Structure formats: structure tokens, C-alpha cells
């Protein structure tokens, strides 16, 4: 897929990322403010060029997640661009906040800086962050460094990665879609009532969303409840739910 198509896929996916607000494991990707969005896309374009030049394959999911697969070895990583404070500072803020309602902090640590983060597609892997300002907003240099670091890391991997499951619907996706639908469509929609009734259930074993109904399986999986919906809800799901 050419770079322009990937970028437009990211742009289209941006409005679907609203589901992240109700998702228990939010999707990675690009989450920046409107004023920074265009410059971030430009940066991403440069990075994609570099990845392509290094023969990496790039995938963009329905929700705008970005996956890069290294050329020679079969290892992939997720890429995300957001504004983050430093993790260490957040931890210290949390411990200091304790009983107080507020704390005063040193200004240097919480600057709202744009960060490119990467994480390999492996269990328990952690995000590695690169501050864009340290690279003079040069996507090519940054992408080269990321590839170099990834290659170094990959050398220590003995087993293969988790399978790259692009565009697969999960239970959490369906649950988030129900809650978002309830919030967007309002009280006139059955999703609103279903969303508030699901609030009371601690564990849901199974959710199936078919063309006209939602089937919720309870914790023991013995009883299932059926909830039928109309065209408005079906339209909503086709917009926000992957593979619907």
C-alpha cells in the first residue's frame, strides 16, 4: 500500500478512535490535538518513507493502529504518537498526591511533549518512548533510530511474536461499542439502557453482535439474554465496530 493511502486510512480512522474513551484496553495510534495533527501526519509520512526504504511493511488497522513489520525477521511493533509526561514523574506525582488534593511540581518534568512510542508485539513488552523535540522533528532520523533499536532488540528474541491480528473484533471492542452507542445515541436508543444494565454485571463471558441483535452471556455461560435493535443502532455499529 502506498504511503498516501496509509495516511488517508489513518485520517479516516481518527473519528472511530472515539471508542477508546470507553475501551478497557484502548488502541494505540495517533492521539494529538487538532493544531498538531497536520504536522504529526507530515512527520509520520517521513517516517513511513524511511520504513519503506528499509523494506519494512506497514499496516494500519480499522481503528488507526499502526503496525510495522521488520523486513528480514518476522517481528512487528506498534507505533503511537501522543503527548506524554515522563513516566517517572507520573509515579512520583501519584505517591506525593496521596492524601493531598493537589501538589506543586517542578515545571521541567511535565512539559506536554510530543512522543513517538513503540512496543513490540510480545507478551509483557513495554513501550519505549522517543521525544520528537530531541530529533528536531525529523522523521527520517527518528525512524532510522527506531529500526536500529528494533533490530538490536530482536537479536535477543528466541521465540516468535504473537500473531499480528489486524482488524479482529474482540469482546472489549463490542463492549466499548455498546457503551459508546449508549452515550452517542442517547436515551431513545436501547443501547443506552443496555449500557447501564451492563454496568451492574461484574463479569460478562460473551457478547455477540449480529445483524439485528446483541446476545450477552452471563458469568456462568448458562443463560444468554437477547437484545434486539433497529436501523439506527445497526448504522452506528457499521461506523464504529470493526468487521460488523
Amino acid at each position, binding site marked *: 500500500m502506498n504511503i498516501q493511502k496509509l495516511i488517508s486510512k489513518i485520517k479516516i480512522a481518527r473519528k472511530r478512535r*472515539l471508542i*477508546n*474513551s*470507553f*475501551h*478497557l484496553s*484502548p488502541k494505540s495510534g495517533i*492521539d*494529538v*490535538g*487538532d493544531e498538531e495533527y497536520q504536522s504529526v501526519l507530515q512527520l509520520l509520512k517521513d517516517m513511513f518513507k524511511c520504513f519503506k526504504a528499509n523494506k519494512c511493511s506497514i499496516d494500519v488497522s480499522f481503528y488507526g493502529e499502526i503496525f510495522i513489520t521488520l523486513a528480514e525477521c518476522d517481528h512487528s511493533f506498534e507505533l503511537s504518537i*501522543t*503527548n*506524554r*509526561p515522563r*513516566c517517572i514523574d*507520573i509515579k512520583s*506525582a*501519584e505517591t*506525593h*498526591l496521596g492524601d493531598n*488534593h*493537589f*501538589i*506543586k*511540581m*517542578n*515545571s521541567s*518534568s*511535565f512539559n*506536554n511533549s510530543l*512522543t513517538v512510542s513503540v512496543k513490540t508485539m510480545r507478551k509483557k513488552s513495554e*513501550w519505549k518512548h522517543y521525544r520528537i523535540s530531541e530529533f528536531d522533528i525529523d522523521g527520517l532520523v527518528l525512524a532510522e533510530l527506531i529500526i536500529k533499536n528494533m533490530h538490536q532488540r530482536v537479536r535477543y528474541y528466541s521465540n516468535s511474536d504473537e500473531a499480528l491480528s489486524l482488524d479482529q473484533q474482540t469482546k472489549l471492542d463490542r463492549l466499548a461499542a455498546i*457503551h*459508546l452507542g449508549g*452515550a*452517542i445515541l442517547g436515551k431513545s436508543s436501547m443501547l443506552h439502557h443496555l*449500557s447501564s444494565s*451492563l*454496568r*451492574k454485571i*461484574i463479569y460478562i463471558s460473551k457478547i455477540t453482535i449480529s445483524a439485528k441483535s446483541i446476545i450477552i452471556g452471563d458469568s456462568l455461560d448458562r443463560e444468554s439474554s437477547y437484545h434486539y435493535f433497529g436501523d439506527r443502532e445497526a448504522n452506528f455499529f457499521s461506523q464504529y465496530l470493526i468487521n460488523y
Partner: protein
Amino acid sequence: MMLSFAKTLKYRLVFTYPSELDKIMSINNIICLEVNELYTDKQLHQYKTTLPSFCFFEFTQELQTTISEAKELLLEKGFHELSFQLSAVNWFFKLTNRYHHDITTFIHINEKAIYFSGKMRPFEIVHFRTPEISINQLEFNQTPIKPIKISQLKGPLAIGLITKIDNLNKQYKETEDLYYGIEPLINELQQLDEQTAMDLHLHCDSQLDLIKRQGNELLSKMETLEKEMHTLSRAVLHKVFGVSKGDWISYLPAKSTSLIQLQYDHCDIYEYNLTMRGPGITKKGELGKREQVISIELVSET
């Protein structure tokens, strides 16, 4: 020429540096606040993803000016609280380990404190807020104690305000005299009304009714005058002494050696005596439990 310039520069650097440094130290403050959810029962909430973990904002000179301007407006218009949209606030989510942008933030400013609230699409009303943070705590690490000096009442602004209070006081007294003049009659008539079998109170234009109505009118006029005097006395405190709610103040009464220190919470005025009340400040420099009172006589020396 160059040398003299350099000397002046050095002189300036030496003398401006500490205050500039202080300024920078006080400006570059990042404040971290906890976030509380609104309108939900706390047991189980599935929307936990839509709730930020922390709120960060920088206390800049600009924000300080905005707050003081808002405080002026509060006093001028008699508002309780002002709130408007503000973008310079970052909401951090632990779940995603980042700042979220799609949040509409409002700042709320009252006389004593500020707080922030926010909403995320698709919510249409604010659904989370931070606790209140006192403006004094925000501006200073150690709240300064402002001394109240009677000599400040000699300024033209103070004299103007005091003259206004003076006029209102006279009006109040006149109204009060009128009211107390007819009060015994109202009471007598009321007693008579209760005891007699005649329908004294039934006609709306009867003498009893007219007198009662006048009594009520006088009472409400007295209340309005009292309110105006209260607003003016708050204006005296704010514009003449530079004191607003939550400020720490000290006062040394004439003919006394003990200094009174308190956190100004509310004030009232009776005749020419302006009384400020609030919890006292202990010797350790902390807020005590006992209420302290500062009383000033407002006399225009014209």
C-alpha cells in the same frame, strides 16, 4: 561609554536578578490535581476509561491575571462564581499513559478558590472535576499576612466609599426610626385583631392593612440598604486594603499591644463599625480553630 553601559547593566543585573528569579520561581509552577467523577455512584462504573487520573496545569502570569480580573468582576457584579472555557490544562489518563486532547475544560473561579471541570465527547455536560485549590495557596508557598492600616482610609477612594456608606447609614437610620415609630401601633393592632370578634383584617384597604404594608416596605428597604452597605464595605476591604476572601490579615488596634491575625472569611457592617471575622492564625503560622474578630471604625476625615 561602553564601560559605563556595562556598569549600568551590571548594576541592574545585581539588583534585578533576585526579584526576577523569584518571579520565575513563582511563575513556573506546575500544579497536579486529583480528579473526581461527578453524578455517579462510586461502587461500579464502567465509564472509568472516560475519567482522567490527574489534571496538570501551569500557573502562569497570564492565568494569575485572569484570576485577579475575574475576582474584580465577581466583586463588581456580586456573582458567586465565574466559569469559562480554558485550553491550557492537561488531563492525564493512567489507562493510556498519556494526555488526552478531546476534553473541553472549564475553569471555575470564586472569591477564594479555583477548580477545573471537564467533559469528553459524547457527554454533553461536565462529568468530572478537580477539588478546589485556594488562590492563596496557588500563588504563594507560605501565605503572606497583609497588615491592615487605618491610615489607608485617608486615600480619596476610601473617602469616597466611606461617604457613600455614610449616606446609606443616614438613610438606614431614618428608615429605622420610621419603622420603630409605627411598630408599636402594628403590634397593638395585631393583638386587637386576634382578640376582637370584628373583621379588622378583611378589607385590603383598611387602616390596619395599610400600616402593615408600610411596615413591610420599610423592613425590605432596610434590608436593601444593609445589602448595599455590605457590598460597599467589601469594596472598601478589596480596593482600599487589598483584602479578599481567604486572605490572611493582621491588625493592631489602637490602645492595644496584641496583634490580631486571622483568615478573612466574612465581614459585616453596623453603623460605622466594619467587622471582619474568620479563623485565627496561630503562632506556628497555621490556621487555628477559634474565630477571631477585627473591628475597624470607618470614619471619613474630611
